[in-house]
Structure formats: structure tokens, C-alpha cells
């Protein structure tokens, strides 16, 4: 029982990371219908830059902030490159984001090497009635709650959040209002960068990241997002948490080595099932 509580808390925390990555993908997809393969790159770059900032002597908090801001700027850059002025198909934009993710490898390996890099987080461990939980996991959950409330407030209360939602609801209508849909797409990429960077600095203390961790991160983020049909943040949160918990339970009670495979299997089934559902409803699922 106590073991189960431990697995659940760890699973929820890891799930929050997936949800954060997934929300970044959702933020971008809603406006642009592009799946950003470089989403994992934002996490890796954010984490690596934060680790360097800390090693240069910046205090905790500030160092991590530098990483998140850098990831946000990176997001804006990726958006600017992936969304051309003339407009290209979403799948072409997707391939550009692959290119940028691979190009980022060069930078990451060049500056930080190819070995996993860790980040000093909270090292303390919480113990109660036989359960030991790293406080970093609790921190992840706490920060995630704040982030998701912030996301909700941003999209429902702020004017720019409203405009982003408008672009996803009806991009022609947004254009008629004089909203620059491409620029909104770039802003969405920036938001995706910030969310990616946050997930990176939060996960790195418990799970060191190397340059090629991005693939697993983006795939798990996509998994979380796809459960909500790529457009709903709250579903991405739920999807991420479910995946995280399932992964942790598989690792705890069965075999850690199959956790990724099972999670990915769930994703494929979700997509196929969703597609079949859409086909039955007669709505086109051309994504």
C-alpha cells in the first residue's frame, strides 16, 4: 500500500512533466496545426542552459529562470523558422522542426558533451510510514499546479490568450479581425518553448538529460497531448498524469524496461481509436 502511494506520487510528478510538454505541443498545434518535434529540444536546452547558469554562480531560482527564458526565446526562433511568411503545409513545418531539433544536437554536443547532465534540485527526501519520496517530485507537482492555473488564466483572461484561442477557433475570422495569425503562431511557439524549458529544469534533477533525450520527451508529450485530441490543455494534463502513473506502476510492479514501450502503445491505440471514431462520425481527421 505504502509502496503504491510512492509509485502514484512519482507517477503523477512524471506525468506532470509529460503534461507540460504536451501543453506546449497543444499551444502550438491549436494555432498552427503543426506538431512541433522540437518540443523535447526546448526541455533539453532549457535544462542544459540552466545547469550552466548555475555553474556560473547564479543562485538557484535565477539560474533556472535563465534556462526557461532561453527556452522561450528558442521557441520563438523555431516558430519563426518553421512558419514561413508565404505559408507552407503543417507537415512541411513539422519536418522543419525535426531539422531544428537535429541541428540543436550539434550545439548541445558541442557545448555540453554527449553525456547526461544533471541539475541540482531539492535533494531532501520525505519519509512517512515507510514511504520515501524525493521532495523534487513534490516540487514538480506543486509547480505544475501553478503552471496549469497560470495557463488557464492566460488563455481565458488575457487579451493575447484570447487572440490565440481565436486563431485556433477560426483562423480566417482572426485574420479578418486584423490578427496576424502567423505572428500568433510564433508566439504560440514561444509559449511552447517556455513550457518545454520548465519541464526540463523540473525533471533534470531526478532524471539527467542528454542531447538525445529530446525524442523520448517529445514523444511522451505528444502522447499526453494526443489523448486530448491535441487541442485541450486539461485533457493533456489528464493524459500526461495517466501515462506517468501507468509508466510508474509498470516499472514498479512489472519491469521498468518496458515502460516507454507500453506508454507508446497506448498512444498509438488512442490515435487509431480516435481516428476510427472520427471516421464513424464522418468528420475528417486529416491532421
Amino acid at each position, binding site marked *: 500500500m505504502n509502496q503504491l502511494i510512492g509509485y502514484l506520487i512519482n507517477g503523477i510528478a512524471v506525468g506532470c512533466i509529460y503534461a507540460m510538454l504536451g501543453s506546449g505541443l497543444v499551444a502550438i498545434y491549436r494555432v498552427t*496545426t*503543426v*506538431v512541433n518535434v522540437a518540443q523535447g529540444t526546448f526541455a533539453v536546452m532549457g535544462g542544459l542552459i540552466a545547469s550552466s547558469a548555475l555553474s556560473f554562480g547564479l543562485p538557484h531560482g535565477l539560474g533556472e529562470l535563465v534556462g526557461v527564458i532561453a527556452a522561450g526565446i528558442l521557441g520563438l526562433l523555431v516558430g519563426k*523558422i518553421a512558419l*514561413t511568411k508565404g505559408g*507552407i*503545409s*503543417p*507537415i*512541411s513545418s*513539422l*519536418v*522543419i522542426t*525535426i*531539422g*531544428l*531539433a*537535429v*541541428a*540543436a*544536437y*550539434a550545439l548541445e*554536443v*558541442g557545448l555540453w*558533451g*554527449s553525456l547526461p547532465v544533471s541539475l541540482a534540485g531539492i535533494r531532501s527526501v520525505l519519509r512517512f510510514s515507510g514511504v520515501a519520496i524525493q521532495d523534487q517530485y513534490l516540487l514538480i507537482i506543486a509547480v505544475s499546479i501553478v503552471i496549469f492555473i497560470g495557463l488557464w488564466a492566460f488563455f481565458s483572461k488575457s487579451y493575447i490568450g484570447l487572440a490565440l484561442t481565436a486563431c485556433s477557433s477560426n483562423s480566417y475570422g482572426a485574420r479578418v479581425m486584423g490578427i496576424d495569425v502567423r505572428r500568433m503562431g510564433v508566439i504560440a511557439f514561444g509559449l511552447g518553448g517556455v513550457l518545454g524549458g520548465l519541464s526540463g529544469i523540473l525533471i533534470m534533477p531526478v532524471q539527467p538529460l542528454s542531447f*538525445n533525450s529530446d*525524442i*523520448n520527451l517529445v*514523444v511522451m508529450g*505528444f*502522447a499526453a497531448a*494526443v489523448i486530448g485530441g491535441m487541442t485541450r490543455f486539461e485533457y493533456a494534463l489528464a493524459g500526461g498524469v495517466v501515462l506517468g502513473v501507468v509508466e510508474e506502476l509498470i516499472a514498479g510492479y512489472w519491469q521498468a*524496461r*518496458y515502460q*516507454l*514501450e507500453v506508454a*507508446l*502503445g497506448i*498512444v*498509438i*491505440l488512442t*490515435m*487509431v481509436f480516435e*481516428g*476510427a471514431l472520427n*471516421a464513424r462520425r464522418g468528420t475528417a*481527421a*486529416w*491532421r
Partner: protein
Amino acid sequence: MAIDTQKVQEISKSKSGSRLPLFGAAIALIVALLLPSVLNSANSSVYVYTMLYAIVAVGLSLLIGYAGQVSLGQAVFVAVGAYTAAILSAHGVPTILAFILAPFVSMMVALIVGIPLLTLRGNYLAFGTLALQLIILGVVANTTFLGGSLGIPSIPQLGLTSSLQLGSAKSYAWLSLVLLVGVLIVSRNLINSRPGRGLRALATTEIGAAAAGVPVGRYRLYAFLLSAAYGGIAGAVYAFFTGFISPNSFSVLLSIEFIVMIMVGGSRSIWGAVVGAFVISILVQVLNTLGTLHGLPNSMPAIFSYAAYGLLLVVIIRYMPDGIVAWFGKRLGRLTTASKNLD
């Protein structure tokens, strides 16, 4: 990828209009035939890899350029072919039989995963294939029977008959050339056949193709199976040639390399895939030579190739969406028309 009917028509018109490409292909074939006899063994390896890359890339271009579906996990079928060849020959199956079976096993895997996966489109299909590759590589890495993450060492050489064993890089070079030519002939005939025209219609508008009576689902699956078979062929030759395979030999990055190749060469023609494979192989060699210059860190070749793949992909899609052949072709065309106008 940015599919544009008008452009497709322009390109096909310019092709049928001149004999130049056929002539060029003939010259290329003669050069390719003669090349292995003058190459040293290191360069022969490069030659073999280039041919194998091209075989996979041709399959992927059928998939992307003709059937309009992006696979980010194409290396998985190469892996299936390679593992089939390696496992079967390790268990005493004659290598030639293992070699022949490899593409069929790849196709079988493609059939099993393709039926659910191909109900997906665009972004979802791309991610589905990527997820598939991660799953299969993960399973392979955890299965002792398949060599686990350490892989399978000392795979025997391919024996065509009991007496004729392929031993030298040179012999593999010729074998892979023959296979590439075979793959090209099959693909070309397919493209010009009725199903091929249906496929092309698929890439432009799927709904339109369906309305015109093209059995969309079936053709998409056929393209997927064929591309998997090509991957299987290349994988099997790779396994026999290198004698060692592991999950790392078929990473996601390899799948992305195939995408880079067909984007560079132009996804709308199978020749583009060959050109792309050739260009990328040469580029990688050049970068390796530069990266291993004295005084540079060990990671330099990797850094160079990451930067090259990544930036190439970005530049090609943004500025030369039809690939470099079409890009230069257009500029050359403009030049010649300009000079004609001067006369």
C-alpha cells in the same frame, strides 16, 4: 511535401519533353558499374552504404512523394530486414534464403502495423511511425533472443551459392548496385502503371482520388508494404556486409537521414531519392574528413553531421521544396531561356 499539383505537372512535362534524364541515368549506371573496380576497400564501403541508403530512400519517396504519407520510422523496416537475415543465418538457414526472406518479413511487420497505423494521417501518422520505431527498438534491445542492446556479432557473409561467397567490399558494391537498379525498375514500372497513377492522385488530393474510384486505403497500404520491403532488402545486405548489428544501428536519426535524403533529392521522383542518397553520402564523407582533422575533439564528426542534416532539412524545405535537382534545373532552365532570348 508541400504538394502542388501544378508543379507536379510541370515537372513531369519537362521530363517527358527531353531524353536528357534517360541519357544521364545511362551514364550514371556505367560509372556506377565501373566504380567498384577502382575503389579501395574503405571507399567501397561508402559505395555500398550509398546504394543501400538509396534503396531505402526510393521506398520512402514512393511513400511520401507518391502516396503522400510521411513515415518518421522507416529505419525500423531496415532493422527488421537486418535482424531477419542475422537471426536466420545464425540458426543455420542458408544465407541466401535468409536474404530472400528478409524483405518478406519486413513486409509482414509492415502489414501488421500498417493496417491500424495507416488509418492515421499527416502529423499523426508521422508520430505513429516514430512511436512504432521506438517500441520495436525498445523490444529488440530487451530481448536476449535478438541479441539485446549489445546486438548480434559475427553474422556470416552472404553466400549466393554454396561455393560463391561474397567476401570483399567490392562484391557487395556490385550486389547493392544490382539491387538498387532492380528496385528502381520495379518502382518505375509501378509508377507508370495504373495503381501508380492512382498513387500519384493520392498524394495530391486523397479525397479527389477516392472520388475518382482509386481504392485509397489499399494503395496506401501497398506503398507502405513496398517501402518496407525495400528497407528489408537494404537491411539484410547491411547485416551480411558489416557482420554486426545492434539496435543503435537503426536509430531514429537514421530514419531522419532518409527523410533528409529524399527532401534533398526531391520527394516527387524516385530519381530524387537516389540523388539525395548520393549527395548525403558524399557530404557525410567530406564532413567526416573535416571532423577528424588534427586537433579537433572526438565529437566533431558527429557535431558536423548533426548540423548538416538539421540545417539541410530546414534550408531545403524553406527554399527548395522540390529538392536540389529541381532547384538547379529551374535556374538552369531560366538561364537557357534567357540565352535563347538573347539570340
